[in-house]
């Protein structure tokens, strides 16, 4: 109750939460409002927005309903963004915890692998991975996570290095707890807050990376994505700029919303930590 109230006291967090809520509503309502295939032809091609109220945002080059595409695109963007970020955070937290807790050679090997991943630009990594394996939703998620797990891993390791020296970890060893249980049940949960603080940035970056992959034609071809819509509109940028602008604005708002809401959560938990 109290943290919630504190969260809603910051205007940025409220703005972020509203944007995210609208986005989630769009994603959830997509099959309700637009039950058919969003990629089906719905009217005349290149109908500008606000002309025909059955197609409020107009149609694209092939006469597909832009609003329907936007709603279904929200599903893909959110799903890929959240899944990729969750994968990256989970992998990063586990690698960081094992490296920090085990120390020695294990730490050395894991951190050099992390270095290797970090030196390659994450977008190139994603691009290469999708090009080799082939585009599908799962592959795109994995590709994005591949470049995003190193940050959480480093933060988790640093946190674990300080937590493992604390008395309660010694206490867990004294009662004979297995090292793996100590690492994942005692240490990891206490190392998570600063790692989770990265989530807003990672989700936002994942959504952008997904859009960029789709823009380059490496998204899942069976799904509407905002990146794909922008790419589609690029061909008629001069005559029908709205085809690129509408999904572009949606993308910007989404990233902004994720970031603001995430910062709000971090702020709230930070206050709570300093209070306790």
């Amino acid at each position: 109750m109290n943290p919630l109230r504190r969260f809603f006291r910051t205007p940025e967090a409220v703005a972020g939460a509203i944007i995210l809520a609208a986005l989630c509503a769009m994603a959830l309502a997509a099959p309700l409002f637009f039950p058919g295939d969003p990629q089906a032809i719905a009217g005349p091609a290149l109908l500008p927005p606000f002309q025909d109220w059955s197609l409020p945002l107009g149609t694209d080059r092939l006469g597909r309903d832009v609003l329907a595409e936007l709603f279904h695109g929200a599903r893909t963007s959110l799903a890929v963004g959240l899944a990729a970020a969750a994968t990256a955070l989970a992998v990063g937290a586990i690698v960081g915890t094992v490296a920090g807790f085990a120390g020695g050679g294990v730490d050395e090997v894991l951190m050099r692998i992390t270095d290797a991943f970090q030196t390659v630009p994450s977008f190139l990594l994603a691009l290469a991975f999708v090009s080799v394996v082939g585009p599908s939703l799962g592959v795109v998620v994995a590709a994005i996570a591949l470049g995003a797990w190193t940050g959480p891993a480093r933060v988790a390791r640093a946190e674990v290095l300080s937590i493992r020296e604390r008395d309660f970890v010694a206490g867990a060893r004294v009662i004979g707890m297995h090292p793996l249980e100590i690492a994942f049940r005692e240490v990891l949960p206490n190392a998570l807050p600063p790692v989770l603080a990265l989530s807003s940035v990672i989700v936002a970056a994942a959504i952008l990376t997904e859009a960029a992959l789709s823009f380059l034609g490496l998204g899942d071809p069976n799904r509407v994505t905002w990146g794909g819509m922008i790419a589609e509109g690029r061909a008629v940028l001069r005559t029908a700029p709205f085809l690129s602008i509408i999904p572009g604005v949606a993308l910007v708002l989404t990233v902004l919303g994720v970031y603001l809401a995430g910062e709000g959560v971090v702020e709230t938990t930070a206050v709570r930590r300093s209070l306790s």
Partner: protein
Amino acid sequence: MSSPLLAVSGLTKRYRRGGKTIAAVDDVSFDIEPGETLALAGPSGSGKSTIARLLLRLIEPDAGRVEFEGGDFLSLNGAALRAQRARLQMVFQDPLAAFNPRASVARVLDDPLRIHGIASRKERPRRIAALLERVGLSADLAGRAIHEISGGQRQRVAIARAIATKPSLIVLDEAVSALDVSVRRQILQLLLDLQREERIAYLFISHDLGVISAIAHRVVILDAGRTAESGDARAVIDAPQSAIGKALVAAAPKLNRTSKDSDAADRQ
């Protein structure tokens, strides 16, 4: 009397600091008999806490032997070490730092029972309640979070956790130093009751000779990692031989209550 519960000999731990090697613990030897309280006293930096951590295998010594319950404790590893830990427990100075900040009282007490297979999942809540009552707490406390209870209650929970596995030796590292005086006395009384009833031996680490004189049978006084003197607690405190022993006795705050003085005279 034939074989001690714990026999420590030649225990040494060195640290490298700025190119120099410093012995935090330097060739320390002592024994603890079953059911006995041995105190380790000394100023900060004398190696008391390092000895505690060495005995619990939280850090490894550079030299020395530790025989516990007739076996070589330092040679144990992995599962064998974890199993034997049930017999050698520890209570830390700061009970808030010694528990996972997210844990509840129930979880703190559930862990040792589960890890050492002492009670089945169904039986454990009853055992936890019994442990809480054993250390003078209400069984209702089980559902509370560690940070919600008072410092004295936390230290009782720490003792309950330590006795959950029926140990023969508990290392108490400044276990009463952070407590209020009235609470401190109650905790010491609890420790003595447990010792009498369960024949637990204590290694009682403290810089406070007043507390040591109240509960220890024997004392080892350390100075800069070495044994300065050792012997019967009362005898050492009444007539310290080493410089550090004299300094510790001189530094202890004394209450000159006329009534107490006559008591002391009566005892002589």
